[in-house]
């Protein structure tokens, strides 16, 4: 090991602090949101996950990301095999197979696959020759990322599958792209959703999109969650409400996972929202800062991948809470209850720490 005690001191404590504060706020929110419901012990389990996550982060910071990138291809193969396994023997919850049960823990492979994809993208895009990506390289990396996406979509879990895209996107952004290719991609970005809507989406996914486009059209069906979420947020007003806790939460299905931010916004109001979004913003900015000061291009790619992933999660989850985004069922990193997403997020932050610590190696 090249890293020693010095490493601890050189950790990016801003990231650690921000992540822990956000996670702690999330845990408190889980407690109040599930208080006196059947998920009443979720906060305690979340505390355990956070502890495990922090441990994982420290462990990850000690590895060398270069060696991880070097092993990214075998890891990628393993991840895809596991995703296939999930489809075969996974636990079904809410009509989708996402988890495999290992020693009593529900393990969501698709969450950890993000980590692998970050490494894979970093690996492929560091080895490009030119300042801009060639079509062949683009197709190659794109094709690779599409494999786990399709597997995850089969579960079906469109939201998580989509989170792989920003990783790829940030990589492509960093690697550079010709205008011509950019235009093609832009057209694809517009056309694909339309085609997907008509041919690839399952009816429940289609109705989610429908309800996103017009939530009031079906207030008791798919639009229900959007409306209830908006009501919860709106009744938070400037400083939040305590009364709402009793009245509104029961209208929100699973208030402690995907809609944790709605309950937070209700309870803490606009002020609380600004505070926590500020924390996330600083976290992302700090990760980007690490990307900029990374010792090499691979480090930059890893950090940017994490930042892009985090940003995408925020955009989709928080956007969903205020009705700006369709309900895709992706969690809010660090806040939503859930072992896999919490731990994998901390592991990714560990990767960022790793990149940072590599600066001091030479």
């Amino acid at each position, binding site marked *: 090991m090249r890293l020693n005690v010095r490493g601890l001191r050189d950790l990016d404590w*801003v990231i650690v602090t921000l992540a822990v504060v956000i996670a702690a706020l999330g845990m408190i929110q889980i407690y109040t949101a599930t208080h006196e419901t059947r998920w009443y012990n979720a906060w305690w389990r979340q505390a355990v996950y956070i502890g495990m996550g922090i441990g994982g982060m420290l462990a990850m910071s000690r590895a060398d990301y270069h060696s991880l990138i070097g092993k990214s291809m075998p890891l990628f193969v393993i991840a895809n095999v596991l995703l296939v396994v999930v489809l075969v023997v996974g636990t079904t919850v809410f009509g989708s197979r996402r988890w495999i049960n290992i020693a009593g823990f529900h393990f969501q492979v698709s969450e950890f696959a993000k980590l692998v994809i970050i490494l894979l993208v970093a690996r492929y895009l560091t080895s490009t020759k030119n300042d801009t990506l060639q079509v062949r390289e683009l197709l190659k990396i794109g094709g690779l990322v599409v494999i786990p996406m399709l597997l995850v979509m089969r579960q079906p879990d469109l939201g998580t599958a989509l989170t792989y895209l920003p990783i790829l996107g940030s990589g492509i952004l960093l690697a550079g792209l010709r205008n011509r290719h950019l235009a093609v991609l832009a057209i694809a970005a517009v056309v694909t959703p339309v085609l997907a809507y008509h041919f690839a989406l399952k009816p429940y996914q289609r109705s989610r999109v429908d309800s996103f486009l017009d939530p009031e059209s079906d207030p008791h069906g798919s639009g229900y969650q959007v409306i209830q979420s908006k009501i919860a947020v709106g009744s938070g007003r*400037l400083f939040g409400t305590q009364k709402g806790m009793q009245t509104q939460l029961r209208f929100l299905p699973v208030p402690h996972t995907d809609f944790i931010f709605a309950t937070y916004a209700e309870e803490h109001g*606009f*002020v609380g929202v*600004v505070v926590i979004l500020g924390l996330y913003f*600083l976290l992302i900015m*700090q990760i980007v*800062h690490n990307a900029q*000061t990374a010792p090499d291009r691979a480090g930059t790619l890893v950090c940017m991948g994490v930042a892009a992933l985090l940003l995408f999660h925020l955009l989709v989850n928080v956007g969903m809470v205020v009705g700006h985004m369709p309900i895709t069922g992706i969690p809010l990193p660090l806040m939503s209850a859930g072992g896999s997403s919490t731990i994998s997020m901390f592991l990714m932050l560990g990767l960022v720490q790793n990149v940072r610590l590599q600066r001091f190696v030479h």
Partner: protein
Amino acid sequence: MEFTLSRYRNVTVLVLVLAAQLFLLAYQIKSRQDVRSIRVWAVTGVMPLTRLLDFLHDNTVGLIKGYSGLMEVKDKNKDLQAEVAKLKMENNFLRTELATADRAKVLALFPSRLPSKSIAAHVTGRGSDSSKVVFVDRGSNDGVSKNLPVVTPDGVVGRITGVYPDYSQVVLITDINFAAGVISQKHRVHGTLKGQGNSVCTVDYIRNEEKVEVGEWLFTSGDDRIFPKGLPLGQVKLARAGKMFFQEVQLVPSGLQLGLEEVLILLEGVHQPIPDHAPPSASAKLLPPPPAEGSDGPDSARVIRGGVATTDADQVLDRYRRIGAAQGHAYGSGGGTPNFAIDPPPPRPPAAPPAPETPPQ
């Protein structure tokens, strides 16, 4: 240790300052509370400086005229101007009364209606946004309170909406938040004037069957309990039948036509003295209701008020009543056979007021 915040000091400060102001805005909207302290500072800080500009303006004008340097004369002049303004107003008031009612009655009424107390004020500045708001140099120290009428001899200017120690904010008659009760000069038609945000005001709630003429003067009616009765508002510019029962009436406010410089704030209402008991709301003032319509003279008896509208049935009934009266026929009793085929004599005015045409729907 490097940190994003310290590296991007400028952006951070910008974001903080913007966020602080957003919160300020949010607080005001949410709690419907005004941040009065900021306004008080700004008004008391800025408004005195406008005097400086006035001073410069007056002095330059004074130099051209051969500035005498006698401050007393100037003060005296100012007092006299206020007096002239007041007299002009009274004159105006009297003229309108004379135009409609008989002389003796007006003379008897006049003393009790005379504006008992007013205070001259100088317009020091207008609002900094596009709304129709001005500031005047009299405030709570001079006895000004919210909702007091602001007038010039030519007409109503506006109403006090914000009071600071030495200055007040006046919402002008043309502002969209302004409304006042009006009465027409010729037919004593009541309505409600509303500002439109531009140079004309509209008058609402005048029924299609009521008579308003273009060019006619409108006055405050006192119904709004803010403006005393009888202040000129302006001349009717347009009056035409509207779709749903009510006319479209537009008015050019007379109080603003000559530009704003000196105004009068009416500290006490004119149609009655201030009541002994304290006003119900600490900041707002409510005038007592204006005297009953009956005192307006014979004209008012002919005005048909809402609520006594009639239908054809009443007219037919009335027609047969007149036929009966004309032929000396008692309905349902014996005697000669009546002839209903002839038209009855027209009604005599005092006995039966003419029923209005039922408004078409």
